């Protein structure tokens, strides 16, 4: 399936939390957090920002029912649970039935285990499913990259957990707890650890994307950059900007966003297109444009994201109707418009050279 499917575009959703600073609120990135979740550089896995949980969790509704999905994220338990306790890492939730399908927990020995009940980020589950991973699978104070494939089904359900690319849990059988054979929400974090936990570099696949976006992406990280220059093509930056930034790309590069420094336009087809810093790495799987926008008066104003690779544009496809308060939106890109192939099959240089910007559609 191509295009939008709930929060997924071409099967992909991601958030590296780097553009968030301070207490995380809803604002369009996630649902309202439970408890206090803070974003900051001291919680980051490599650079940028990570998020900190203190018996709290982030909640991301899918707005689509998924029988299967893959959730990937980096997670660091500053301290493991005390003996007898279980630390909740993630919860796969059925909003329709208001119940937990699966919970991933960690015990005091660093073994990981799935449970079929409890969780909800704070409740300690009690019914295990499948076998636990070996003790010492994770250690305190270190980031590991988790990837979890879940299929909710009473007969042919499946759970596969990979840590840093290595499979540590592989279960087949009954994975269904509620009356529905799907999940439509994921909760990252929870209580039970003997201290705070951190998370970073999150992605979710709805399993409808084309290869390679319908299987494990592997151990990866999310590099977040603000723009550093206007488009290489003249005439592609027609928005007006406030001072003192002095440049339209400068306003868009603010992390965190600054309500007093913004780009503004009511002109249909007004466009801004920016260049970004080079990407360092071996392989880029996909790109995702996160932006914060609003309309400043009553009425209707819509925007769309445009990816521009080697002077070839990839538009939208769906314009976003802006609310009256600053809200985050995102538009992933899995295909290089210049080649028509996935970014994963191309070069890092091509992905890094892609310009990204917004256009007023109506």
């Amino acid at each position: 399936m191509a295009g939008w499917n709930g929060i997924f575009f071409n099967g992909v959703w991601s958030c590296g939390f780097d553009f968030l600073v301070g207490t995380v609120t809803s604002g369009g990135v996630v649902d309202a957090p439970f408890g206090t979740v803070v974003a900051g550089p001291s919680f980051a896995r490599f650079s940028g920002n990570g998020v900190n949980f203190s018996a709290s969790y982030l909640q991301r509704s899918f707005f689509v029912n998924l029988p299967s999905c893959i959730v990937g994220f980096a997670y660091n338990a500053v301290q493991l649970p005390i003996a007898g306790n279980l630390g909740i890492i993630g919860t796969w939730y059925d909003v329709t039935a208001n119940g937990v399908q699966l919970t991933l927990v960690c015990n005091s020995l660093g073994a990981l285990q799935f449970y079929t009940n409890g969780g909800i980020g704070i409740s300690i589950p009690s019914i295990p499913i499948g076998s636990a991973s070996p003790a010492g699978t994770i250690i305190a104070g270190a980031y590991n990259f988790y990837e979890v494939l879940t299929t909710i089904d009473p007969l042919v359900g499946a759970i596969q957990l990979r840590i840093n690319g290595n499979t540590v849990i592989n279960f087949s059988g009954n994975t269904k707890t509620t009356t529905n054979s799907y999940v439509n929400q994921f909760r990252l974090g929870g209580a039970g650890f003997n201290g705070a936990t951190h998370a970073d570099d999150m992605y979710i696949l709805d399993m409808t994307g084309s290869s390679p976006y319908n299987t494990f992406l592997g151990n990866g990280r999310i590099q977040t950059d603000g723009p550093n220059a206007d488009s290489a093509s003249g005439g592609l930056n027609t928005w007006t900007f406030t001072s003192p930034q002095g440049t339209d790309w400068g306003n868009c590069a603010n992390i965190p966003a600054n309500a007093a420094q913004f780009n503004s336009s009511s002109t249909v087809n007004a466009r801004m297109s920016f260049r970004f810093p080079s990407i360092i790495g071996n392989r880029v799987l996909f790109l995702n444009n996160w932006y914060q926008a609003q309309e400043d008066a009553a009425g209707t104003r819509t925007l769309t994201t445009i990816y521009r690779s080697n002077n070839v544009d990839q538009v939208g496809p769906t314009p976003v109707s802006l609310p009256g308060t600053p809200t985050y939106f995102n538009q992933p890109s899995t295909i290089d418009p210049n080649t028509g192939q996935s970014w994963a099959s191309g070069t890092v240089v091509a992905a890094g050279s892609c310009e990204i910007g917004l256009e007023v559609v109506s």
Partner: protein
Amino acid sequence: MANADVFQSVREGFTLASPNARVTQSVRESFTLTSPNARVTQSVREAFISLNTFLPTTTTSVLTNVDTWELDNSPASNPLDTGTPIAWNENLLDQQRFSLAPTPANNGTIGFLYIQLATTLTGLGVNFAVPDDWTPYIMWGALAELLGSDGSAYDPVRANYCVQRYNEGVELARLVLGGSQ
């Protein structure tokens, strides 16, 4: 004659009233559509980068051995060209050196099939478990193998002679010493 006494004479005139319009306020309402600005306060790029070593697809091709005359006189050959090599050359170069044509434009890996130099002889010799008079036949056997193997030294006629001399030594050992091959 009596006089008409007029005590009052009034005139009634029936006229239509003509009221004034009295205006205490007059305002204008105009209904217009508002035209909000789109306001963008942040726009960032996320890139999901694999931490696994990613090896791009590679192609392997056999290089043709050419000499300098062919390189100099080939119409398609230009010493300033760069690209994917299609030929290699070793003549007129120092030992253990070879060149590629055209000059590689990108990094690559060369697969080189070669025969490693033998261990340097020390002159101390090797003890054979054969009588001294039969040691020359070991030489004939070694020559037969060298001259009969693929390579620039391949010479089947001389290899056949060496095989005959080697077999002669084996037969003599059997007859004289009761030995075997």
